[in-house]
């Protein structure tokens, strides 16, 4: 038994370790960029919404359409559809670098929606109280809206990360590696069931871990 584990580790440890790092890289970089794009878009969606003081139907409707269109396209299609664009932006369409662009296109609109719904939950009375105190709109957005929405934002980001991990499984198709790719290539195509099982267990642990960390951080941010 022990020997088996050691043998397995000798044979696959390197591959799995590398794949884990690749997954983390892909998730981390595309999450960062997606938040930088998605959070402002979420704020814009909330501000331009009808009935709001800064209501702007054109901005709101066009954002809505773009986000819905992007969110309707399956990731795998997005991956290939964006190939030329990816190459243009990052100089290559393969490897971890090549998969970041489609991952961002996939995740940023999703995060924008998650942020929108998190921000909409913020008590409008509080926003009004700050408006009544003569505080600038940009300060209200940051110090009231985003701050108060933090627990929901954290939960939303947790969901987004898990979705991202799912999407990275397909990144192998453009040679970006990652855990999903290992499970598919070695486990499925080359029929090494142990590798597939171990990868799946690793993914389960990863996702469980992320969800519980997210839940715990959100609860801590909630303060009531």
């Amino acid at each position: 038994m022990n020997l088996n584990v050691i043998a397995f580790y000798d044979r696959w440890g390197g591959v799995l370790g590398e794949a884990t790092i690749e997954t983390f890289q892909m998730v981390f970089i595309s999450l960062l960029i997606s938040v930088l794009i998605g959070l402002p878009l979420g704020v814009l969606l909330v501000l331009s919404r009808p009935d709001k003081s800064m209501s702007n139907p054109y901005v709101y409707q066009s954002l809505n359409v773009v986000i819905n269109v992007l969110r309707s396209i399956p990731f795998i299609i997005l991956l290939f559809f964006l190939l030329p664009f990816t190459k243009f932006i990052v100089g290559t369409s393969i490897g971890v670098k090549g998969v970041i662009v489609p991952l961002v296109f996939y995740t940023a609109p999703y995060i924008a929606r998650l942020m929108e719904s998190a921000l909409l939950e913020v008590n409008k009375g509080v926003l009004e109280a700050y408006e009544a105190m003569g505080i600038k709109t940009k300060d209200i957005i940051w110090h009231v809206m985003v701050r108060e929405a933090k627990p929901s934002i954290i939960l939303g980001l947790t969901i987004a990360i898990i979705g991202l991990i799912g999407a990275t499984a397909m990144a192998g198709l453009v040679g970006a590696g990652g855990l999903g790719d290992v499970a598919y290539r070695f486990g499925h195509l080359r029929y090494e069931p142990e590798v597939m099982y171990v990868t799946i267990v690793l993914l389960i642990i990863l996702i469980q871990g992320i969800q519980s960390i997210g839940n715990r951080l959100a609860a801590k941010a909630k303060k009531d």
Partner: protein
Amino acid sequence: MIQLKEISKTFYSKKNEEVTALKGVSLEVKQGEIFGVIGYSGAGKSTLVRCVNLLEKPTSGDVVVNGASLKNMSKNELRKSRQNIGMIFQGFNLLKTATVYENIAIPLKLTGISSKEIPTRVEKYLAIVGLEDKHHVYPGQLSGGQKQRVAIARALSHEPDVLLSDEATSALDPETTHSILDLLLKINREFGITILLITHEMHVIQKICDRVAVMENGEVIEQGNVIDLYSSPKKRTTKKFVNSLFPNDLPKEILEQLKKRGPIISMTFVGTSADKPALSQLSKKFDVDANILSGNIVQLKDKPFGKLVAHIQGETEETDKALHYLKEEGVQVDEVEINES
């Protein structure tokens, strides 16, 4: 201090239906007074106070606070003026994710108060509202009354000239309501802050207001000193509000029976005559029997105010003399009309 001039406000709903919430309302709140606006739900009270700091933009009319017309101000000027107009709400509107201290400190910082001065201000105003031991507590752990105290401290910390209150006590139990009203009264007296408050409860008006306006259907139907309005309400709605304090629901049949044997009068006492036993003297001085049908005394801001409904039984000659005596004693006497009900 606050002048509302012919304020109208029309809301347009999605289906293009119009709701006119305010129809040419004019009001003046004088420096240093506590002015109350009372009315039933939907009368337009919230819309009215929200027009004072332009949270709601009037469709027409002008708002003047502290001598400056707010309507034609630039965004920046309006922000500066708003910093001089505090506001408290029924729902407290505190940051849930911030401590009591931060709830006061954050807006101070955002309005440009120096970081050296912020702790001093927070301490000062938390002490005034009696929460100096709650710095690091989150609003979720406070009672409704304590939350409102934090909101009051937050408003005061900007050292405004005016405080607007939109049903600030409506979510609180009677005891807590009283303590919050006492606090508002103290703020008004010690800092000279002018207060405009709206409410649907008469006891809020009588406890702290100097003057009051009654609103109905987007209009101010009656306004004046609290005592005047209480002792001689003119409009039906005003009478209803006043009568809610003096329940008088004897059956019509009984009143009609009684009336055959002498007048039924309502006596209004203001100030000192409220505690003078004018009524008890009647039977001794004249050949009449006085029977109290209903009555109540309430404490206005600084005077007791009472209303008794009594039946004066006796010959017309004697009852006339008795009524005359009461009037001489400073009691306001009105005959009760039965069909008024």
